[in-house]
């Protein structure tokens, strides 16, 4: 059996974290390759449903990252996002969806090293948690029925 490789989806904002991740690359910093980056105009645009869709499609972990507070390209998108994340996290916790699998962070365009660190620590944390089989079972319910 091969070692479990976590699948991580990162939802990042165009102006800070995406540029930060670009800097990680141009700085030749090596980091885990488990992450698939999806670029958004702003963290305020990241609908909570997209996170659920990522889990539904088989992600084991999620990173959500954008500009630091007071740094938003659209002035207040990240402030709104922060409130939404606070509420969303509480709801997921109530529902028993594993909130340890979602890492939120602020990574600016100058923080290439921080981005590498966030990805590496998240990948390690998810590796320890193992594949998200509980959610996969729910998401794959019909497929399982079809096999029987």
């Amino acid at each position, binding site marked *: 059996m091969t070692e479990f490789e976590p699948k991580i989806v990162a939802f990042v904002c165009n102006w800070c974290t995406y540029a930060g991740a670009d800097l990680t690359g141009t700085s030749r910093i090596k980091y885990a390759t488990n992450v698939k980056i999806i670029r958004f105009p702003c963290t305020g645009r990241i609908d*909570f*449903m997209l996170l*659920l869709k990522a889990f*539904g499609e088989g992600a084991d972990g999620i990173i959500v990252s954008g500009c630091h*507070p*007071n740094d938003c390209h659209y002035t*207040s998108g990240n*402030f*709104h996002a*922060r*409130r*939404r*994340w*606070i*509420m*969303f*996290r*509480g*709801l*997921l*916790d*109530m*529902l*028993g*969806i*594993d*909130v340890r699998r979602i*890492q*939120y*962070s*602020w990574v600016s365009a100058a923080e290439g090293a921080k981005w590498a660190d*966030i990805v590496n620590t998240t990948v390690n944390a998810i590796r320890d948690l193992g594949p998200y089989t*509980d*959610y996969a079972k*729910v*998401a794959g*319910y*019909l497929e399982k029925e079809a096999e029987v």
Partner: protein
Amino acid sequence: MNELIKKAAELLESNVVQIVIGYGKGSAERTRTIFITEASGCDQLIFDSRCIQNLAVYLTKAEIKKLGKPAIVAPVPVLRSILQLASENQLTEDGLVVLGVTPESTLIEFESFAAIETYLASHKIEIDEKYQKIIEGIKSMPVEERFAYWVKELEPCFKCYACRAACPLCYCTRCTVENNQPQWIKSASHPLGNLEWHVMRAMHHAGRCTDCDACYEACPMGIPIHLLTKSMLQDVTENFGPYGPSLNKDNTLSSFKPEDKESFIK
């Protein structure tokens, strides 16, 4: 409620309103919503502890709006919904007569939405101790067990959307669940779709829900979906301070403070 019947009849007779939305006798021991357009029909109005539907849900419906200016029988939960709808610019003061009913079943008239807010200041939203205990119990389960609990609780859901229909705050004319390009949420009774639907429903009510339990009462399968909104209500209070519908405050999720605190963002 002779007082209520008299007042409603007066309003219809003088043509101040064209329709009265209130509670009437339903099948068996239940009550149902009645729409009265003639003063003579007002003696059908009743009010007692069985009147649990949230009538405010009708105020935003196009079918009711076209019948003319309404008067609405409004116990405390309905008053809260009216205030929330007003704060979201869904109602106007001239377009509505509110016949408030106190918990002691006396009639109380409101001149303005601000008067409703003043009245509600002494009727704050409080989560029953019974529910607090249940929520605490769920939150103390290990995460896998909690997930299994909710998957099982949500299993009977077959997406009749009665919870949406019963909720005064679900007034969008086009809901995410009707989006089918792509189909955001599976419309079949699929555990993933059930989970996503209830997450979405709760999130769209975050910081708006007035805790009337109409969704739970409407659910034909008795799924305790009100626990989700109650738990979020606790979260709002914990993170953003005292909570309740208000004309002077923005909704939790449509506003922010630079100093909002959290502990989980790296």
